[in-house]
């Protein structure tokens, strides 16, 4: 009997909603209660420093190139020792989509995502973050990493003397 089946189906649905009526809501009242996002949550972008306190960013423009919405812009400069740095570095958070491609592209672990998701403002210009707003004092997610210990101009030790590095192969040698 299809009528019996239909009535059973409707009652089943009514019973399901009845149960949910007394269930604790899954949502939380936001400004009063806040969820702690997971540590790898992608939100506000920061520029980190190496363990010695120097800027990690070498102004290679890879983040800017990777950014699908073109919200990162910078101007590269060069110090006396030949190392590059960003003269200015700007992220427009009103355009940023928090995709994390910049952090993925960064070869020096300078640009990183933080779980600070509360980025909103009535003044759109206040979402334009300059270098001094972005640069933090810590190392972020890579506390040990210093780019110049591995490579780059003015690398700390001669070739083969840096951590995780083997001495250069003598290409003229006969030993395989």
């Amino acid at each position, binding site marked *: 009997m299809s009528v019996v089946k239909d009535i059973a189906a409707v009652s089943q649905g009514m019973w399901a909603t009845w149960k*949910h009526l007394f269930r604790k809501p899954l949502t939380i009242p936001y400004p009063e209660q806040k969820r702690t996002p997971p540590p790898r949550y992608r939100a506000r972008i920061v520029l980190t420093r190496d363990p010695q306190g120097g800027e990690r960013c070498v102004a290679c423009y890879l983040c800017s190139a990777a950014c699908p919405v073109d919200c990162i812009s910078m101007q590269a400069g060069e110090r006396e020792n030949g190392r590059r740095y960003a003269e200015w570095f700007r992220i427009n958070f009103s355009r940023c989509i928090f995709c994390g491609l910049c952090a993925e592209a960064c070869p020096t672990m300078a640009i990183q995502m933080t779980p600070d998701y509360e980025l909103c403002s009535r003044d759109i210009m206040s979402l334009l973050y300059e270098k001094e707003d972005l640069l933090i004092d810590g190392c972020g997610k890579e506390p040990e990493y210093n780019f110049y210990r591995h490579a780059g101009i003015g690398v700390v030790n001669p070739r083969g003397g840096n951590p995780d590095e083997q001495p250069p192969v003598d290409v003229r040698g006969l030993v395989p």
Partner: protein
Amino acid sequence: MPDLIDILIIIAKLGTILVVILSLAANLVLAERRMLAWIQDRQGPNRVGPQGLLQPLADLIKLVTKEDLRPAGADKWLFLLAPAMAAIPAMLTFAVVPFGSPVHLLGRVITLQVVDLNVGVLFFMALSSIAVYGITLGGWASNSKYALLGGIRGLAQLISYELVMGLSLVPVVMLTHSFSLNEIVAAQATVPFLLYQPLAFLLFFISLLAECKRTPFDIPEAESELVAGFHTEYSGLRFGLFFVGEYLNIIVLGGVAATFFLGGWHGPFLPPLVWFCAKVLAFCFVFIWTRGTLPRLRSDQLMHLCWKVLTPVALGNILCTGWWLTIKP
């Protein structure tokens, strides 16, 4: 010849009913939003006032301060008149609903019913027919295709379900031998008609859902298909009137259903007024609960259900009731 005090009493009753059911309708909107939210494991509006209790006030302020738009090419007078034609019949229906036992006050007997018409059932049916005009004319006068489609669907739906509603009330009238709602309530002093006529109650309830244009029969306003159906072009207070009219309809038809099938204000232990309110609110709850559960019917399914299922069943029910009344000693 009614004296001045009688007239004053009637005015007082009208005023009380107006205030109570209007504020109840406003709060029902909030209740619906919160209950739907709970059903969907959400919180619902809980910002304005404690537990969101001042939300109706905020909604009212919002609706009053919005611009009253009238689309170009709309039929001016019908467009302005339609929201009132949707809301007023709902309020008028309450005039014949007895909501409590007569009260003795200062040597007078005050019946808790605005007017005891001896054709109360017909009055109710007539007013629910007039409510069709609000939807149809509102949809037609808007000069918009969505509104027109909504209006036409509403017309077809409401006229069809009017029939089922009338047929499901016939057994009640047969049992009572009266069209007066007061007599119908009096006849249920011991046993509500729900127990005699469960099938008629079910039919009546389904047609109530259709008459209120509630899910699963919210075809005239079907958001996902027709924007907002017949009130697509309305804004501000006129939209509010349509909106509140819908909730007024729920309350009033809940009251009517309680009167016809649940014994009106009769009930043990508690005062009659409390029983009546409890029954009306129970109906409102079931309406909201149904909305939270059932999906919308298609237009042809709606007509199929009405003409091929409900109407024959209602007619059969009338025949069985008649047969039972003739063989009854």
